[in-house]
């Protein structure tokens, strides 16, 4: 049987390549889930972030989060802009030599009312320590009702005293338990903070095993 030619070849090629291309695009282009107009605005903001030297994934994630939570387009864009501003302000407070995780954690703290000055104070005392876990705990405490000045000053003092990530983790768990049992959030933090041993900055943490904050099944 003679099958004519290039026309059939092109049809066969298109039938194979077009779906493959769409699948590849879907895998590699998460922004494809955004409406076209919103996508354009988000991409413009991501371009601006690149110019500022800011990470773009948090902006992309905030937009996709809004789509998943079925927020209106204008609300999504407002939140992406808010995230952009928080990252920019966090960068100003922390300086250039911080990781993306520290930057996003600091941006979250700023959105809770922690000031740039308070963040800068922590950054100045960080030496070679990482700020991510203290800032995550700080944000959690404020979200649970601990007054932000109490939370920031307590976390800062612990950080200065050389508290390790393990210490902040146990602090968070203890405060959470105390709040759940009815203790005033601010008082719960102050009580638990007194239990954290003082260490000279740079000293190794008390435990060598590290049941880090990520292992949610262990809590």
């Amino acid at each position, binding site marked *: 049987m003679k099958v004519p030619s*290039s026309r059939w070849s092109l049809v066969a090629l298109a039938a194979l390549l077009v779906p493959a291309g769409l699948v590849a695009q879907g895998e590699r282009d998460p922004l494809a889930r955004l409406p076209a107009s919103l996508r354009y605005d988000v991409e413009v903001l991501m371009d601006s972030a690149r110019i500022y*030297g800011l990470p773009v994934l948090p902006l992309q994630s905030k937009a*996709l989060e809004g789509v998943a939570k079925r927020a209106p387009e204008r609300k999504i864009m407002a939140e992406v802009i808010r995230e952009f501003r928080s990252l920019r302000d966090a960068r100003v407070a922390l300086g250039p030599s911080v*990781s993306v*995780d520290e930057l996003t954690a600091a941006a979250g703290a700023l959105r809770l009312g922690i000031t740039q000055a308070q963040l800068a104070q922590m950054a100045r005392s960080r030496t070679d320590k990482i700020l991510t876990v203290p800032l995550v705990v700080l*944000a959690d405490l404020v979200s649970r009702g601990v007054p932000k000045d109490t939370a920031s000053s307590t976390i800062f003092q612990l950080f200065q005293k050389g508290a390790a990530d393990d210490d902040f983790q146990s602090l968070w768990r203890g405060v959470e338990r105390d709040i759940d049992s009815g203790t005033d959030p601010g008082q719960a933090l102050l009580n638990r903070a007194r239990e954290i041993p003082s260490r000279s900055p740079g000293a190794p943490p008390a435990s060598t095993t590290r049941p880090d904050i990520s292992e949610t099944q262990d809590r």
Partner: protein
Amino acid sequence: MSDELSALDPSVQDVIAEARRPVAVDASARRLLMEAVRAEPRPRRAPILAWFVAPKRLTMPPLATLAAAAGLVGIGVIAGYTINRDGRAPTERASRAAVTPQLPDSVVPRAIKFVLIAPQASQVALVGDFNGWDTGATPAERQPDGSWATVVTLRPGRHVYSFVVDGTHFIADPAAPMAPDDGYGQKNSVVVVAGASS
């Protein structure tokens, strides 16, 4: 041939003979015709590019066509995975490198188990910045004790996430630190995976 002609009707033979008679062309008409031909511009040599854009007839058996198509798809997939091997956009890799030049090139992802106790739920999924907040990407499995669990491999660092119960209800992980207000009226959680960048 002459035998065939002789077998034809005489009138047909006359027509054939007339058709075979040379046509007399006037000498001046022949000269005019040849002058007109010479006056025509010489045909230009076709440029090489014209060969590529001119329509061509390509004939391939269907089996060869399918094989060629599969080969092209394979090349594309291999190239794509080679370029984006770690699943992050090149721009994002560049920005991370600019922000944290002290980080090592390789960080080891860790498998993290997420658990939500929700015996009344009919389905639970995990969403977060690690899966693009795709509610269909990471379903949790019901456990015999009524809880729901899923394991996700995450790079070291801070991740924001939430559970989605029955497709619509976003619930923060009660066993994890709370993330700052998400701006959409829901609560998120934070996981910090230990590693170089945490």
